[in-house]
C-alpha cells in the first residue's frame, strides 16, 4: 500500500516536472531576433531555421529592391515608434540597411534615434509594395522569435 502511494507521488512529481516551463535564455531570444533563423538553428530545428531565414531575407531584399522605406522613429509622431518596432523585427538586417543609407555618422548623430532616413523612393511605383515587404519581413521575424521562445520553454516541439 505504501509502495503504491510512493509510486503515485513519484508519478505526480514527474508529471508536474514535465509541465513546468523550462527557463529561456535571454541570449537565445536576442540571437533569434538579430539573425533570422539562428534561434531555430541553435535549438536543432535546422529545416525550419533555413526556411525562415530564406523567407525573411527574400521578403527584405524584395522590399529594398522595390525601393520601399524602412520605418524609423520620428519626433512628435508617437505612431512612428509603432511602425519602427515592426521594422526593427528584421534584426541585423534593419541596422545594416540603416547604416547603408545613413552611414555610421547618421547613427551617431546627436538627434539619434531621430533624424534617420529610412531610404526608399516615394516616387517609385514600388514604394508602398516595398514598404509592405519590409514590414512583413520584420513582423514574420518577431513571430519566429516567439516560436523560438515557445520551443525553448518546452511548450512546442
Amino acid at each position, binding site marked *: 500500500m505504501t509502495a503504491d502511494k510512493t509510486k503515485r507521488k513519484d508519478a505526480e512529481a514527474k508529471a508536474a516536472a514535465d509541465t513546468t516551463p523550462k527557463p529561456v535564455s535571454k541570449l537565445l531570444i536576442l540571437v533569434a531576433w538579430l539573425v533570422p533563423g539562428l534561434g531555430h538553428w541553435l535549438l536543432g530545428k535546422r529545416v*525550419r531555421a533555413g*526556411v*525562415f531565414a530564406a*523567407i525573411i531575407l*527574400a*521578403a527584405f531584399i*524584395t522590399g529594398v529592391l*522595390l525601393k520601399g522605406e524602412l520605418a524609423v522613429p520620428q519626433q512628435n509622431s508617437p505612431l512612428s515608434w509603432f511602425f519602427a518596432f515592426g521594422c526593427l523585427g528584421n534584426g541585423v538586417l534593419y541596422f545594416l540597411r540603416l547604416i547603408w543609407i545613413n552611414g555610421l555618422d547618421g547613427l551617431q548623430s546627436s538627434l539619434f534615434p531621430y533624424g534617420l532616413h529610412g531610404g526608399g523612393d516615394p516616387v517609385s*511605383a*514600388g514604394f508602398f*509594395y516595398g514598404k*509592405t*515587404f519590409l514590414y*512583413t519581413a520584420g513582423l*514574420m521575424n518577431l*513571430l*519566429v522569435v516567439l*516560436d523560438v521562445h515557445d520551443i525553448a520553454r518546452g511548450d512546442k*516541439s
Partner: protein
Amino acid sequence: MDHFILLVWHALLVAVFFAFLWRSDARGRKALFLKTFLIMVVGAFVLGWLMFPFP
C-alpha cells in the same frame, strides 16, 4: 512591374512561412500552405473585381 506577380510573391512567402510556423508534419504544412495561398491570391482578385465599379 507587374502588381499581380508581386501579390503572388508576397502570398507565396507568407503562406510558406505560416505553414512552417504552425504545422510540423508535411501533410499539414501542404494543406495550410494551399489554403492560405489560395485565400490570399483568389481573395485579393475577387476583392479587386468587387471594387471595380466603385470610383
